[in-house]
């Protein structure tokens, strides 16, 4: 198990956003956490990466307790968080955004950076065309790709993607999910947050359903996809 979340709770003031959720992610898996708007998906990721204060519970990564670590220390251990809303650096060029992904490794060599960039550009040829353009000048879809590409430059052991398809045109959404599968093939472990349950469950090995800060269902992706309750709640049937 690469990630173990146990009894995690998050409060915002008196509002409980997460009430004791537990989930695990195994090496090489795509695990998805689906749920409607406000269910607590983003809060889960923010708490794992140390950006939201935890009211309770523990998070273990590669066997190490990371519950109380600072966000940058958690990132340095090999967790990459591609946040909701992309959060690319608008006034850094595409290339500099990608380099920013490598700064967690202090001793990385120039050749290794170039090698990773080539790898990323194979998956995102469009970014290569825009290499010297400012990050903020890219279209929404390109920014999402840059955010994922920047995450891949971190060479993480676990990638957490927060609604990568949000606000994108259907063709681009397809492209993003293709990429997620490619990233998995490259040997990465992925925790994928989605409102787009149909898509997410199709690519995921396992899934969790989050409702009002509690996990109500869990199982294999295909099983959830055919689960009546899930179909009614998230697939509009």
């Amino acid at each position, binding site marked *: 198990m690469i990630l173990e979340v146990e009894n995690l709770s998050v409060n915002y003031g008196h509002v409980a956003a997460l009430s004791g959720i537990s989930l695990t992610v195994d090496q090489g898996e795509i695990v998805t956490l689906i749920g409607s708007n406000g269910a607590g998906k983003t809060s889960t990721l923010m708490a794992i*990466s140390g*950006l939201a204060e935890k009211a309770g519970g523990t998070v273990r990564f590669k066997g190490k307790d990371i519950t109380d670590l*600072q*966000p*940058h*220390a958690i*990132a*340095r251990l090999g967790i*990459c*968080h591609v*946040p909701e809303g992309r*959060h*690319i*650096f*608008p*006034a*850094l*060029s595409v290339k*500099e955004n990608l*380099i*920013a*992904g490598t*700064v*967690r490794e202090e001793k990385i060599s120039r050749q290794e950076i170039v090698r990773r960039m080539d790898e990323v550009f194979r998956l995102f040829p469009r970014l290569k065309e825009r290499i010297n*353009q*400012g*990050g*903020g*000048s890219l279209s929404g879809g390109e920014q999402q790709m840059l955010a994922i590409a*920047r995450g891949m430059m*971190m060479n993480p052991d676990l990638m957490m993607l927060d609604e990568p398809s949000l606000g994108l045109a259907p063709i681009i959404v397809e492209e993003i999910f293709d990429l997620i599968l490619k990233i998995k093939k490259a040997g990465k472990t992925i925790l994928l947050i989605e409102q787009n349950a149909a898509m997410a469950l199709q690519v995921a090995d396992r899934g969790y359903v989050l409702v009002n800060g509690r996990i109500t269902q869990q199982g294999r992706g295909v099983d959830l996809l055919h689960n009546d309750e899930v179909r009614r709640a998230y697939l509009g049937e």
Partner: protein
Amino acid sequence: MDYYLSQAINGICQGSIYALMAIGYSVVVGVVGLVTFTHGEVIMLGAFASFYTFQLVGNNLIIGVIASFLASAFIGVFVFKICYERFFNAPRHISLICTIGTSMLLRNLAQIIFGPNNKPLLEVVPNRFFGQGVVGLTLVQIIVIATVISLSFLLFLFFNRTRWGIMLRAVSQDKTAAAMMGINVRLTSLLGNSIGCGLGGVAGMLLAIYYQTLVATMGGSAGMKAFSSAVLGGLTNIPSAAAGGLCLGIVENLGITISSASFRDIFAFIFLLLVLIVKPEGFAKKTGVRP
């Protein structure tokens, strides 16, 4: 005509000092994400650091630059610890008010320690003049301009050609995302704040050798001028802040040509008011932002 030309040259020279103050100011505002009111005192302390260094080791300008940079960078650490470090997640006005308080503290401490009167700083640079008639440059003007250009160039290289530079710019643009990249935001902001303050310190030294005098209360107008120039660049754009400083220097000097030297600061603040009224967001083209 010659007179106006020579005043314009003076303006450029003084403007380059303001440019350095404004560059430092923009670096600080970028990394801490907030305007600061201690920059004037940081500049003043840089001036005093060079004053005592010159007394101690003689008039060595390189050592003066290093001493004023280091002294002000150190003050930067102090300011960061007091005003920002604990308040990253607090409402922003708390840090802001804290910088005002720290500025008062530093200014009054300086008056107690260094004395309230103007101190002369003579003959650091020999009095030489290159040019014809009234049009030309004095040696001190050449040194001032050369120092500002070399420091700006070094800063440019550091920001654009090094990984630390990328980290600093990342922290200025998005602290959450920077943390997600594994960047220690607190440490990086501390470093950036110190660099910005150090540049302010060197600007303080240049002010002192240019006017051949320094005083514990000089930070008041210096800080406001740094702010005015930086506003022109939308507070965080470094090249525009530098251009703002240059403009301010020229406006000031042409202004006193048509009136009196004691009105110097009036022109500076009319300039600030006009910028704030006409273009409060600054003149910097937001690179990389979709129109």
